[in-house]
């Protein structure tokens, strides 16, 4: 099993979720994060003091899939999250050694 960790632009969440649903992914977990990267932040103003906010709001989408679904899932996310503009985000893949569904105790691919 693999854990796909995608950092995306917040307004792309619905697209990504739909794309994943289409290919049969049934569970995802989303976290609000702040991203720092090539994309420039914005300036904020406070009583004449301007300061640059480098961190931009992003969403981290975590999906665990079995190995066979990996490529397809990456594909789906990439496509759905792409705007072609800087700051679209990244996808990181790592290995998951074990999976358990708390409710039933199922493990492995059944637990995804």
């Amino acid at each position, binding site marked *: 099993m693999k854990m796909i960790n995608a950092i995306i632009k917040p307004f792309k969440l619905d697209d990504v979720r739909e794309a994943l649903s289409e290919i049969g992914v049934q569970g995802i977990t989303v976290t609000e994060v702040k991203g720092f990267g090539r994309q420039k932040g914005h300036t*904020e103003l406070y*009583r*004449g003091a301007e300061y640059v906010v480098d961190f931009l709001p992003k969403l981290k989408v975590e999906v665990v899939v079995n190995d066979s679904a990996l490529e397809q899932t990456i594909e789906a996310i990439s496509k759905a999250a792409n705007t072609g503009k800087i700051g679209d985000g990244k996808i990181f893949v790592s290995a998951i050694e074990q999976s358990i569904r708390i409710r039933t105790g199922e493990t492995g691919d059944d637990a995804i």
Partner: protein
Amino acid sequence: MNSKLKNIFGFKNSIKKISVYGAIISMVALLPSIAFAQELDTGDTAWMITATVLVLMMTIPGLSLFYAGMVRSKNVLSVFMQCFAITGLMTILWVVFGYSMAFDTTGMEAGVVNMSSIVGGLGNAFMSEITFDSMSGTIPESVFATFQMTFAIITPALIVGAFAERMKFSSMLVFMTAWFAICYVPMVHMVWSGDGALLWDWGVLDFAGGTVVHINAGIAGLVACIMLGKRKGYPTMAMPPHNLTYTIIGAALLWVGWFGFNAGSAVSAGTGAGMAMLVTQVATATAAITWMIVEWITHGKPSVLGIASGAVAGLVAITPASGTVGPEGALYIGIAAGICCFFAATSLKRAMGYDDSLDVFGVHAIGGIVGAILTGIFTAASFGGSGLGDNSIGLQLWIQTKGVLFTIFYTGIFTAIILKIVDMTMGLRVNEEDEHLGLDLAAHDERGYA
């Protein structure tokens, strides 16, 4: 007692031509012995109770919100706590000795400078002389005393913005107690207690508290923020307001409540109150729009904090003028306040390097000074004001300036002395760890938002 009545009607010495209640002033002047017997006017009383409510609302929740929104979320409660505790404390102090020392007129005589020109005595301590029958002009004395109490509450509360996010709560309470007794009460007495009072006799025009309230608090704030030192990280670390919606709500409540402050200072529901309301609205709107425009030009975008600050600057500046200028004068005062306070709270502050957390100096001291000085000009009948009596504009300007300078020095010096003593005895500032953690948890074991 008598002088309190005169205070009600404004500045007897210098202003002759204030229609409607002009007549009453003369009456009072002619028949001082029956002044106390003036009949209760339910309309005046209705308005003054309402005005009192409005001024209290300025502090809680108005000012509290305005300030609380600007600090970091870890300190949000500490600001509310300070404003609330000040509200409670000043109420008690005002009852115990403040009202008496502010408005006692024993030993005062027009033109004579003596100890009673500076501060009154303790004859009315614990408000022992206020009965169910006592009157102040056309309203119950209980109402007058409570109305003035709300001024005694908001003035110290204004200072909170200067030392926000780093002062010890206990030291704050001690400082405020001393500051109230030494800086606030005497200033009220000197400006508003009538013939024989120092600034009153000079002929200083301060209808609703440019010197007494705003310059007083603004200078104290400057001194305090310098003596406490900068917040850890200032100015390199960004310390953006944690909730600007609170700040703008607070500004709105200040605006709304300020009609109690200014129109209430007429101590009657007549043309004086009406005109005070109109000019307050005009100056505030003008200052808000002016700040917005100046910021738009200099920064490229107008901001919410900017327009809110502009509104407060306008409110401050029109305060001393609100009893004697007309709509035209209000427009000019609004423009001047918007421009001057903008630069004071932005360029000046950064140039000087002090950390006046929420710009008490930039908005209240500068706004108060602008207003107090311009009152000397726009009160002139030629600008649609109520007139300067026998004074020329030049003379009145000088009188106003004298009043401003006196306030700056008086308050500046005594505030510094008080703070020094508190610092040496109990320390002014929280320790670094507490500042880091935030005052909410460190001082109150609470968090604003769970």
